[in-house]
């Protein structure tokens, strides 16, 4: 991993956490009467981690990322558990979407290297599992399962839009 990749990831971490807790959390609070506008963009950090990063490092970063978001959301462990779940699934999704020639291990799995179609399937599937896990753990019971499902779907939809806006603006390569 080059130092450029390292800097890019540190910057991405800070940027996504700040966007999440300063902008999107406010947005969700503004719409408190309608609890479905809940976009989660920080999973983008997990999606773009280098493929060659050791597994334990990926887990640790996911945990730290989740806990950082939790600190601001005042919900210790909820975002962290979802982030750990997402990073756990990442290799399986990567294997499922592996292009014919395999991955270039020097590149991060990003839109700029692997194309729109590939990155859409990749981000959507990881994000779906993230939202599924996050909103289920947040509800923590089966009492209002319809509401939870609706929150999963709308949260997924808004998160995907948020992540793609960021990807279109910055087009990350490192």
């Amino acid at each position, binding site marked *: 991993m080059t130092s450029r990749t390292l800097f890019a990831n540190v910057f991405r971490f800070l940027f996504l956490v700040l966007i999440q807790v300063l902008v999107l959390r406010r947005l969700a609070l503004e719409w408190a009467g309608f609890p479905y506008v809940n976009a989660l963009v920080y999973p983008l950090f997990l999606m773009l981690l280098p493929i060659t990063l050791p597994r334990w490092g990926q887990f640790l970063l996911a945990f730290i990322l989740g806990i950082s978001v939790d600190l601001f959301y005042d919900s*210790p462990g909820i975002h962290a*558990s979802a982030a750990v779940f997402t990073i*756990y699934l990442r290799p399986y999704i990567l294997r499922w979407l592996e292009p014919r020639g395999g991955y270039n291990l020097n590149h991060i799995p990003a839109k700029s290297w692997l194309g729109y179609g590939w990155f859409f399937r990749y981000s959507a599937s990881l994000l779906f599992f993230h939202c599924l896990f996050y909103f289920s753990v947040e509800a923590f019971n089966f009492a209002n399962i319809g509401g939870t499902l609706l929150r999963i779907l709308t949260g997924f939809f808004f998160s995907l839009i948020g992540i793609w806006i960021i990807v279109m603006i910055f087009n990350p390569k490192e």
Partner: protein
Amino acid sequence: MRNLLQLFVRFGGLFMFLFLEVICFTLIVNFNERHNQIFLSSSNAVVGFVYERYANSRDYFKLDEQNAQLLQDNQQLLANIEQLQKKLARLEELTRDSLPRRIAQRTEAGNDQDDFEFIGAKVINNSITANNNLLTLDKGKADSVVHHAGVINGKGIVGVVRSVSNHYASVMSVLHRESRVSVSVKDKAYFGSLVWKGNDPKKMNIDAVPKHAEFAQGDTIVTSGYSYLFPAGIIVGTIDTFWVPPGDNFFEIEISLVNDLSKLEHAYICINKNRDDLLTLEREVND
């Protein structure tokens, strides 16, 4: 050893995943109020069911013993009624048409509405050996038991309801390190909070009694009634020793518990009828 290492290489991701999720869920159920409540009441429902089955089968074998015990209790009660009726008759004769009688009638009318309602329950699980002791009762929301209600038995206090599911209640025994009950010295106004330091299930401590208070060894300790949990005057224990730690303004009091919590079979849950009223008032003051 090598096999173990190979296992870890193969399933390392899964181990890491499970390990971190355990940490996350520990955080979730410990530090999120709502998640904590859901976790307690659902675990309560499962655990309560198992314990009830166990207690039922155990009770069956102890029926003889319990019958004998109840018979003895009944005899005692009947004897008490006899005595009391005699006393009452004598008193009525003495005070017929006198001033004290009229006063007594008036105060009786004033105290007509009881603050507390008592729900009898069977203890289906109990521990006294752990640092934080809990017990389970076979009454729950369906029997109008609520969160944070005091629990007593015939001899004295038992604990406080910590969470309720539909048919069970989990009670934090007074022998629990987080348990705090407001108590006072009988017939004196001094009050403090009853805590358990975690060693002897027959000994408890009282904190925060000011240095100028006066009492003696052997004085009775009762609940103070300064909370919505317990009615005033439930017996707790007797004072063993007391001293003021150097540089402190409060007594350190050690008492011996009257109630033997290792032999609990039945208990009564005290439901304060004014509970909601009190809670709203306290919340308004705190906000």
